[in-house]
């Protein structure tokens, strides 16, 4: 029962990512795409340090290591 709840919850979460991206890609949408959102975050800098780029690159690198190497 709890296992099914967890699987269902994750599937709903993933489906929501797909749904919001689909809504964002419609003509005249007020929702930015996930790529635009990432691009905006990656603009963030503290002085000369591109904190947004480093943060997103580091996060995605960790995701790859977590699922594909360990």
């Amino acid at each position, binding site marked *: 029962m*709890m*296992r099914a*709840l*967890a*699987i269902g*919850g*994750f599937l*709903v*979460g*993933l489906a*929501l*990512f797909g*749904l*919001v991206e689909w*809504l*964002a890609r419609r003509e005249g*949408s*007020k*929702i*930015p795409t*996930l*790529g*635009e*959102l*990432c*691009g*905006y975050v*990656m*603009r963030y800098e503290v002085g000369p340090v*591109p904190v947004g*780029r*480093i943060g*997103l*690159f*580091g996060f*995605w*690198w960790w*995701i*790859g*290591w*977590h*699922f*594909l*190497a*360990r």
Partner: protein
Amino acid sequence: MMEQPHDLTVDTPRTWERPVVCVPVLVALSLVGGRFPSFSTEANVYVFGAGGVLIWLGLTKRVQARPAPERLRPGAVWWTLPVVVFGIFEGVTFIAAAGDDFPTFSLLADPLLEDRLVRSAAWLVWLSAFWGLVRR
């Protein structure tokens, strides 16, 4: 020769940035990555190597980047919905630490990723998204 005004020139992507080149490269890299099982030295080296090269490309801006929006549209708040739903389930299953009875996303993904084809597909998703980030 007359110089072109800057706003009339179009930056063309380099050969290796074109989809006809980078897509087959990403597929080939994914097929290789899919051969390495979890916890192997090869998998760790490959992830750190591929990620390191992509981060180097992204931080040195050697790849032509797409223009980033200066402001977000108001609908950006909708992105919190999937993040919160996914985050709640990941957080609760992690804290509960109930193993297969109430598994985290990682525990659910592990048996699927043992299949070489699924593993290669996961590599392709990871590398393609990383390449997309580098180009932002």
